[in-house]
């Protein structure tokens, strides 16, 4: 058995290595002791994480390039994930969820992301919508929507952004006029993940006055007359999920589909995003972890000037810095997750800090990993470029990193 492992080691470090072996090295569960993501976890959390890593390595990583290049929405693979409980990780078990904590969720998404960032990120958005319905919906709404969402029989999309309101989300223009027992929606949403392929749309729309207090949250089902979609956007990354505009033209939605009270919509949206930000940051972590391992393996293989790249002190230091930032990021995300699940007063700021710091650092880590690969890093045969392209958008959506700074600054300056 030592012989087999050593042979594998020799194969990995020989200079005649084939490309497929480099590509596949991320699928082996990365074992580098100092950045081991299972450090400090409970036995149960380690089990969750192992499950997610195994699923990512077996069911996602072998397909991540194909899903990206063919722009395939991997319904079958996601439903398989849902069977294991990944469809509603922090949704309550009475409506089909797994009832886990935010920290458990972060650990799971971090592990799944090593298999495919784009698909995991979509799953996190889906989970966020399921949670919003579970938390703010009444019994009928929860029973109507949550079981199908948790099993991924149906898929969900989160609709807040509009062509003219991104960071200034509270200025959204989509109106919902009350008419007897239903609302009539008019307007359009932009950049909706899953839009057109998903079944359940959680839509923030204006039922009242200007500003956040006039916004309500409605659940709109695909097939409702007046609901249509724009063209599928062509993106730099996140290609395993379709992105489309969602258009409402005199779209009638029953009042019974409203989550919470009129005027509560913006608050619901923001509460959803707190968790969403931890999840997106967790996805960035997974990509960075995989990238560090890819960079390390490449450094052991690639020779220049008569020795492997791993002998270069500059690259050793670069790798060390990448590893340090990865671990620092991981600690911040997990702290934010704990703060959120404990309902601490600093939770919102901490989630913003985590999203800001981690998405920036992890993009930088993935980018440096690509640089370490040299010319090969720019080829689509190698996974590292997909991690870079996929995590780039994490610095933009779920609240730009600039908006994160606004939230943190407000928290600092309001106190004084």
């Amino acid at each position, binding site marked *: *058995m*030592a*012989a087999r*492992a*050593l*042979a*594998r*080691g*020799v194969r990995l470090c020989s200079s005649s290595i084939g490309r497929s072996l480099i590509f596949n090295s991320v699928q*082996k*569960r990365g*074992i580098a*002791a100092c950045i*081991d993501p299972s450090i400090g976890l409970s*036995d*149960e959390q*380690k*089990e*969750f994480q*192992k*499950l997610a890593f*195994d*699923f990512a390595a077996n069911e996602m990583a072998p397909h991540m390039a194909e899903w990206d290049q063919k722009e395939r929405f991997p319904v079958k693979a996601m439903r398989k994930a849902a*069977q*294991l*409980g*990944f469809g509603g*990780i922090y949704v309550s*078990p009475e409506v089909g969820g*797994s009832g*886990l904590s935010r920290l458990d969720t972060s650990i799971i998404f971090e592990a799944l992301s090593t298999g495919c960032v784009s698909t995991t990120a979509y799953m996190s958005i889906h989970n966020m919508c399921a949670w919003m319905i579970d938390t703010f919906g009444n019994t009928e709404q929860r029973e109507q929507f949550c079981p199908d969402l948790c099993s991924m029989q149906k898929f969900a999309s989160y609709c807040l952004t509009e062509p003219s309101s991104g960071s200034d989300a509270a200025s959204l223009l989509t109106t919902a006029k009350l008419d007897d027992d239903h609302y009539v929606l008019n307007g359009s949403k932009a950049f909706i993940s899953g839009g057109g392929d998903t079944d359940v749309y959680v839509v923030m729309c204006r039922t009242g006055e200007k500003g956040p207090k006039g916004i309500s949250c409605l659940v709109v089902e695909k097939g409702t007359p007046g609901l249509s979609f724009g063209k599928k956007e062509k993106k730099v990354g996140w290609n395993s999920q379709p992105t489309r505009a969602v258009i409402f033209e005199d779209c009638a939605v029953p009042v019974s589909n409203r989550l919470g009270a009129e005027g509560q919509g913006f608050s619901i949206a923001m509460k959803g995003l707190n968790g969403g930000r931890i999840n997106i940051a967790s996805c960035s972590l997974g990509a960075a972890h995989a990238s560090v391992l890819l960079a390390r393996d490449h450094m052991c293989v690639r020779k220049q000037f008569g020795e492997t790249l791993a002998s270069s002190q500059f690259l050793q230091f670069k790798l060390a810095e990448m590893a340090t930032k990865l671990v620092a990021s991981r600690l911040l995300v997990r702290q934010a997750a704990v703060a959120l699940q404990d309902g601490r007063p600093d939770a919102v700021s901490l989630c913003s800090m985590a999203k800001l710091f981690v998405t920036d650092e992890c993009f930088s880590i993935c980018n440096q990993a690509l640089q370490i690969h040299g010319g090969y890093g720019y080829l689509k045969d190698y996974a590292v470029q997909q991690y870079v392209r996929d995590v780039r958008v994490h610095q933009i959506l779920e609240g730009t990193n600039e908006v994160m700074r606004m939230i943190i600054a407000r928290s600092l300056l309001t106190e004084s």
Partner: protein
Amino acid sequence: MSARVLVGVKRVIDYAVKIRVKPDHSGVVTDGVKHSMNPFCEIAVEEAVKLKEKKLVKEVVAVSCGPQQVQETIRTALAMGADRGIHVEVSGKDYETLGPLQVSKIMAALAKKEEADLIILGKQAIDDDCNQTGQMTAALLDWPQGTFASEVTLEAEKLKVVREVDGGLETIKINLPAVLTADLRLNTPRYATLPNIMKAKKKKIVNVKPADLGVDVNSRLEVLRVDEPPQRSAGVKVETVDDLLGKLKEAGRI
């Protein structure tokens, strides 16, 4: 029909880890190294759980021998569907020298104590590659054995086992109680699900000492030295067939 199945699960160094030999050549480095359940043991657990789902077996008991950490391995078996676990405590020097003979004595003792009707083990462990525990357990119990099983079916109170052997596939019929060892193609182990991992927390793991089972864990074997295999050396080009024959004779190959 069979009511109770014992499944042995071994905690081994994870298959993906690059193994390093200790500087004193007494063994391989295990401290701080990632461990997981032996892949053939996973297949054994899966087979046992499948039998339970077909209602051919009432209870699946997962057994592991070793220090505190093997409880993780038992928990994985519980998360896959085993009903309860038995942790046979062996630690320190005893654990380092624990081998198939002692484990099979333990399994045999447990089989009698638990009144098991079937024992399923992995065909071998990926750390020592012994491929002995199943066979020794069967011998100690004087039970029939179906080793290298790639297919197991129950036919009229007997087990029909298809075995993968060097010559191809051999089908045998054995009486119960029996010992089976799982080969690679027996099944594809399921993923645990999140709910099952949580349910596994509530399942019981009982601690037992080898002495309680009347088993002496002293090893009859002594490992003298562990070395890495020799580095692959460069080849040599020859000009003629005569040169080739000469070189082969030199190396003692012909």
